[in-house]
Each structure stands twice: as structure tokens, then as C-alpha cells.
């Protein structure tokens, strides 16, 4: 149990850093100077100290929603095998539980978008939920494909298995599944090519549109929640791609190594993400289903092939 809290603490600290790193890498690639890797930290601090402005006629959702978003990301950080694969037996990082926690955060965000009572918030929520509904089959199938070699839907077990037999990772099934999984994670976290996290062009935004009515600590929690989610999912992808370094016991040394490995993997992936985003263009909203359909096919093939070749 304690390890879970270590994990949460580490990733809470890591999330703003990761965002800072990606922004910085991106700025450098684009030839800008950048604001420095600690800028997200400062933003959070600033927002938490401000006085919130809330729309007239809105309800408690506008207050509670952002907190739920943040909490759901924290729970994710606790459940997933990021630093260690030793989870609590009674709260295992079960595939479906993880997805449902992701969903809770997404729903809270969508409700926040609607509660403002403006056209933009509703638009963001609507698009957000549509993308989400389409991502879910892909995500589930991808993890399902990954789970087949181990026969368990517990993600920690999956990571363990990949650590024990690395051949799984580079098998055709594993590659297909990971490709699908990465597309799903991009969509889930609102990155390019599905959504542009830096845009404020009204007609293309999804995530940002839902935040328009939030300010101060509300905005802080929303931002923090989405950063943490990104970090955690990158951590998961990192452990699935390269499980080495992750702690398989509660041994303090192993945990420390695990922490270092996790930080390293997340930051490397973040940098790759930043570079990739510079090279990619956002697809039209109504092209997103095609992207997800492609990812879905990959995942489906992964499952079907893995079932047949056993």
C-alpha cells in the first residue's frame, strides 16, 4: 500500500515537470527559447492562490468537478504499475477498473464544460464524449490483447510477464497491440493528432473549450488532473514497452531504482511526444473516427492473432 503512495507522490511531482519538459522540447524544436521546465509548477501555484470566478446559474459541479478530475488522476497513479508491480491484493490495477477511473475523470470534465451554460463548454463536452466513446473499445481491446499471454486482466501481472519474457514485447501481437494502445492513449489524453493542447482556436478545440469557464483553483485542478493523466499513461506505456527497471518487490532499493526508471522513461517519452507533435497536424474532428477505427483494427487483429497462434 505504501508503495502506491510513493508512486502517487512521485508522479504528482513529475507531472508538471513532464509538461514543462515537453513544452521546452517543443519550443526548442520549433526554434523558440521556451519558458523553462518549471513553468507549469509556477502556473499551478499562481492559480491556486487566485480568487475563482464562476458563472451565474452554475451549480456545485463547477466546484467539485475539477477536484474529481484531479482525484481520478491520482487514483490512476496509485493503481497502475508505474514504479512497482506489487499492488495491493484487494485493489489490483485491474484493466477495467483503470478504464472506469479514466472515465470518471472524463465525465467530470464534460459536466464541468456543460455546467458553465455556454455554447463553447457544451461543444467541448460533446466532442470530448464522442471521442471518448470511440476510444474506449480500442483501449480495452488493446489491453485485452496485451493480457492474453498472461491470462489476466491485471496490468501489473501483464508488466511482470513482459519483464519475464521480453519476447512478448517484440512479437507481432505485442507490436500491433502497442501501436493501438499508443493511439488510444493519445486520444485519451487529448494530444495531437486528435486534439491540440495548445490551441485556443475555438472551432478546433476540445479540451480547452471545457475549461473556459473555470478559473483559479478550479482551473488548477483541471490542468493538474490532465497533466497527471498524461504522465501516468506515459508511464504505463513506458513500462509496457520497456519493463526493465520496474520494482517487482517492496525492497527499498528496488523501489528507488523503479522510481528512477519511471522518471527516465516518462521524460524520454515526453520528449518523443513533443517532437512528434511538432511533426504532426491535427486531424479534423470527423476524421478522428477513422484514426480510431484504424487503431481498433490493429487491436482487434492483435487479439484475434494471439488467440489463434497460441
Amino acid at each position: 500500500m505504501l508503495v502506491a503512495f510513493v508512486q502517487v507522490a512521485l508522479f504528482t511531482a513529475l507531472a508538471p515537470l513532464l509538461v514543462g519538459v515537453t513544452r521546452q522540447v517543443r519550443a526548442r524544436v520549433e526554434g523558440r527559447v521556451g519558458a523553462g521546465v518549471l513553468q507549469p509548477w509556477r502556473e499551478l501555484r499562481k492559480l491556486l492562490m487566485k480568487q475563482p470566478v464562476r458563472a451565474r446559474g452554475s451549480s456545485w459541479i463547477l466546484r467539485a468537478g475539477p477536484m474529481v478530475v484531479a482525484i481520478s488522476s491520482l487514483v490512476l497513479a496509485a493503481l497502475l504499475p508505474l514504479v512497482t508491480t506489487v499492488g495491493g491484493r484487494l485493489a489490483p490495477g485491474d484493466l477495467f477498473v483503470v478504464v472506469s477511473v479514466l472515465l470518471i475523470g472524463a465525465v467530470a470534465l464534460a459536466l464541468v464544460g456543460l455546467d458553465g451554460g455556454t455554447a463553447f463548454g457544451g461543444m467541448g463536452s460533446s466532442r470530448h464524449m464522442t471521442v471518448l466513446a470511440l476510444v474506449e473499445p480500442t483501449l480495452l481491446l488493446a489491453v485485452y490483447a496485451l493480457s492474453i499471454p498472461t491470462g489476466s486482466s491485471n496490468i501489473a501481472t501483464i508488466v511482470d510477464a513482459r519483464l519475464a519474457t521480453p519476447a512478448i514485447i517484440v512479437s507481432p501481437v505485442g507490436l500491433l497491440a502497442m501501436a493501438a494502445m499508443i493511439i488510444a492513449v493519445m486520444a485519451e489524453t487529448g494530444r495531437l493528432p486528435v486534439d491540440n493542447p495548445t490551441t485556443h482556436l475555438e472551432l478546433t478545440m476540445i479540451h480547452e473549450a471545457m475549461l473556459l469557464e473555470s478559473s483559479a483553483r478550479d482551473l488548477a485542478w483541471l490542468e493538474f488532473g490532465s497533466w497527471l493523466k498524461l504522465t501516468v499513461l506515459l508511464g504505463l506505456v513506458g513500462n509496457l514497452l520497456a519493463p526493465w527497471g520496474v520494482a517487482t518487490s517492496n525492497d527499498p532499493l528496488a523501489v528507488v531504482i523503479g522510481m528512477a526508471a519511471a522518471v527516465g522513461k516518462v521524460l524520454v517519452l515526453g520528449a518523443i511526444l513533443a517532437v512528434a507533435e511538432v511533426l504532426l497536424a491535427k486531424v479534423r474532428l470527423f476524421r478522428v473516427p477513422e484514426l480510431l477505427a484504424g487503431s481498433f483494427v490493429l487491436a482487434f487483429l492483435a487479439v484475434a492473432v494471439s488467440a489463434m497462434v497460441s
Partner: protein
Amino acid sequence: MTAVSWAMLLQFAFAGLAAALALLPAERIRSVLSGAASAVMSAVGVVTGVLAMNGVTGGLQFAVAVPAVPLTFAPDRLGGLFIVLASVIGLLVAVYGAASVRGASASRTAWFALPLFLMGMQLVPAAADAVSFLLVWEAMALGSTVLLLAEHAGSSRVSSAAVWYAVMSQLSFLFILAGFGVLSAAAGGTDFSALSAVAPASPPALLAFVLLVLGFGSKAGLVPLHVWLPRAHPEAPSHVSAAMSAAMVKMGIYGILLVVVRFFPGGPDWWGIVLLVLGGGSAVYGILQASVSSDLKVLLAYSTTENVGLIVLAIGASVLLTAHGITAAAGAAMLAALLLVVSHAVFKVTLFLAAGSVLHATGERNLDHLGGLGRRMPWTAAAFGIAALGAAALPISSGFVSEWVLLQSLVHGTRVGGAAVSVIVSIAMPIVVAVVALTAGLAVLTFVKAYGIGFLARPRSAAAAGAHESSRVVRAVLIAGAAGVVLLGLVPGPLATALVSVLPASGTPIVESAGLLGVNLPGLGAVLDPLVLVILTAVLASFVIIATLRSAWRNPQRIDAFAWGGGGERAQPRMQYTATSFAEPVVRVFDDVLQPARDVEVTHAGESRYLVNRVRFSQSVTDIVESRLYRPVLTVIDRFGVVVRRIQNGSIHLYLLYSFAAVIVVLVVATL
């Protein structure tokens, strides 16, 4: 006479009392007294069901003129479960009705029909032979039809809905009758124990399976036999639609279980495929229609089709896995089906009753005219929200637990001991997982829409702005329903073990209670303990809450301002996103399935083709199953009805010709 017999007799007595009290002249008194009697009847029904679930045998038997064998009502364990279900729903509905319905829905006829309807539902699972089953089945159909017609003077749509409902009910009845007829003929008796003696692989059993699944599927609202649902549920009084959706469609599920669990536990694997296809299709189609629907009750009705689809899908998975010898996953799938049944009953009754309260308070079912009800009707909003969690299968609701078990059974169904078992299963399971996942995603969207548009933001009409909270009793019923959703979601262990006890016992236990009343599927090695998750979340949440409180302590004031709304000075409520606009991306993405009718009408200014005065855009989504499958058939029949009049054209010579031809034919045939 066992305890079950006495309890059933008592139920009959209270049903009679409720029917008698329904004839009282004063509306208020009749509502309260008859509703109370119906509630007590249902409460006794709970006792009957619990007794039967625990294996107490016995029941009632009475002889009728035709047929010669007496009618028997003796619930088994499975039946007991469904009796409990129907009775709990009946209890909530009766109390809600007594407290809230007025006017036409509280007429003598309506109150008379309610005990008939409820009693019919509570007796369907108790029936132990085909004739009794069909008898109470029709009583249920009759009672619900009468109730559906309660508001007939208010809208012409009620009559149309009643016709659809009555005809589809009859279709369902005739299929079931045919199925039982085929089975009885093969078995030589109508008793269920005799029917189950028919070999599952024999032609009568196969034919009966198809007929019964069609019949029960129609009652359950499976696509393409669902067309009555989105018509009948919205037009019925809300407590009736709640009972129809939460309990009555479950009788269709009970029927399917009767076939695949009680009669023919070892059915061939194509039964499973059939059920998977029916269930999966219904789930996706139902939730798609729900996601694009703006009418709150239509949305709930289609969502029922979705949930029923998932239940049937789970049953189908169980049948398929059983046929391929994957028993652990098969058991889990059956458990998932039962969990979904219970869960859907609880959250759907709450949703419909909450929708009824909204309708009562605002006179509106159209989400596009609602909004801001969360502040005006906080209790209703809370209950609806919690129940919506269940419908969207999110933690910590009952819906989540059941869908979790379902997905576990599916992902573990492909392999036994690390080896793939069969190609069919290996292909079917990923597709089914994807279908379930897509359904779950769209369900989340649908209920975010329903709750977000209906209860959040600002009112979109004067009616919504003037809404008021419901009476105390109604609130209590809603809270009870919502509490049920949460309770089953938090501590699913005892429920799951109780549910498994109604199934025929197998070697290894399907489910155990684990940890803090969580569920453990020992055959699959999967554990879910919601309470632990909640504790973990609470601990993590405490950090966020502390930080928030610190921030709030430092900056206590809140500034109320107009919504920013893209820089506009004052964003009007009518500028808000509506349910229709919310669903627009879904309509676009699933254009091929939904086939919306779009109409763009451009009025040009003056002579120029380039200057546009006005553009009118309209888009409507219809049920394509209805418009493509039923409409053509109905049109053909209707045209035939006109053409065929010619055979009776009034000419006596023509009539004589009929007789003459008949004489000649009979003469020739008789002498051949």
C-alpha cells in the same frame, strides 16, 4: 401448504383488495389506499421471492375448465429471483404512484389495472407450466396496455403507442405460445419439468428455442423487435414506464433464461451465437439511438434496449462458453447477466421515476427545453445522477460491477490454461468485448448528455425555470432507488453470491465474497473490491480537498459573473448547447447507421442567388429499423387491406361463384 403458498395467497388477497379499492370514488383516497394495497402486495411478493430463492418449494395449484391439467404456480430459485425483482420494483412504483399521480393516470381504471399488471409480473416467474405462464403473461400485457392508455385524452400519440404496444405484445405472446406448443407436443405435457425433458438437440427443442427467443426477445425489447419500447415508455405514466422498463422487460429475460438455464442447459453453441448477435446488435443500436435522442423518456427507453441487449449478450456468451466447455468463464458470464438484470432494474426504475418527477414539475420531456434543474430539484437531480452512474456503468454503481464481471468473463473466455479452445470463441470474444466497450462509451456519452443538459447549466425554458422539487414520499422513493444503486455498487459480494445460488450448482464456485464484501471470481483469478477502492480514493482525495480548503480559506469570496461565453457580454440561455447539438457529432460519426433525415432550405434575398436571407436546417433521426423493416410491411398490409375489399364487392353472383367453386372443388376432392 408451505410458506410460499401462504405468501402467494396473501399476495392474491392484497391484489384483490387493491383492485377493489381502486373503485373508490374520491381520487385522492383511491390513489393512497389502492397504491398502499399494491405496495403491500409487492412487499409480500418480496417475501415470496426470497423464500423461493432460498429453496423453499411449494406454491398454488388450481384447476380450470380447459385444459384438463391444473394450473400450477410454484417458483423455483431462479423464478424467486425474478419475483423479488418484480416485487421490489412494484413496491417502489406503487408508493410513487400513490404519492404522485393525479388526473387521468389516477383514474379508477388505471388503479384497477396496476395490481393486475404488478401481480401478473410477480406471477410470471412463479408459473410452473406453460398454460399458467401464458395466462399471467397475458394478464401482465393487458394490465400494462390499460395503464399505457391512461392519458389517452391528452395526446394522440398515446393511442398510436398503445396499438404498437398491443400488437407487439401479441406478437411476442404468439411466438411464446408457438414455442411452448412445439415443446409441449414433443414432451407430451405442459409442465415445465416435462418440457425440460426434451432433448436439447432434438428438432422440437431447436424450433422452440427460435420461437421462444423471438417471443421473449420482443418482450425484452431486443432489436429488431424493440419498436414498441420507444413508443410505449414515453407515453405511459412515468411510474408505469418505470415498471415496464425495470421489471416487465426482465420477464423477457426470465423467459430466455428459462429456455437456456432451466429447460436446456446444454444447448448447442449456435444458440449462444444467436443470442450474442441479438444482444450485441440491440446493445449498440439501442445506445446509439439513445445517444441521439432528445426526449428524456425516449432516451431511457432506448437505453433499456441497450441494457437488455447486454444482458442477452451475457447469456449468449455463457451459452457459447458452456458449449465449448469453458465453464468458469461461462459461469461468470451468467453471473454477469443476473447482475445486469438486478442492476438495470434498480437504476432504471430510479431514472424513470426521476424523469417522471421532472415531467411533473416542468411538463417537459424534451431535454432541449430543460436545464438548471439541479438547483431547483436537488434531490431528484442527485437521484438521477447516481442512477445515471449506474446506467453509464461507472464506479461506484451497480452497473459498473456487473459490467466488470461481464468483461472479465469475456476476456477470460478465450483461453483455458493458456491455450485457445476454439476458433469460434476466439473470434467471437474480441468482437463482443469491442461491442461492450463501444456500448459503454456511448452510454457514458448518453448519460452525460441527459444529466448535463437536463440538470446542469441554465434553464432553457420558462417551464424549466419554474420547476419545483417533488413531494417527500416521491423523494424518499427516488433516494431509496439511488441508495440501491450505490449499495449494490459498493458491496456487491453478498448480492453476487445470492444470485449465483439461483443457478444450477456446478463444481467450482463461480463467485465468492472477498475482502470488504467485494467479489472474487476464483475461476478467473479476478477480484473487485469497490469499498477498498473507495477508501483509497478517499485518502487520495483528502489531499486535494485539503489543498482546496487552504486555497478557499485564503480566497474566501466567490465572484458570480455572467458566463464568459466566448467574449460576448451576455450569453443567453438559448445559446447553450442543447441535447440535439450535443449529439450532433455522434450523428455524424454514425451517419450510416442512424441515417438522419437532413433538410436545408435556403431563402434568397431578392433576386440574387448569392445573398441569402434565411437558411433553415432541420435534421431528424428516426428509428431505421422501424422505417426500413416495419413501415414497408405495414404499408403493404394496409394496401392489401384496400385491394382485398374487392372480394367482398357486393355482387351476389360473385358470392354464389365462391360457393359454387367450393362445391365443385369439394365434390372433386371427395371423390378422388
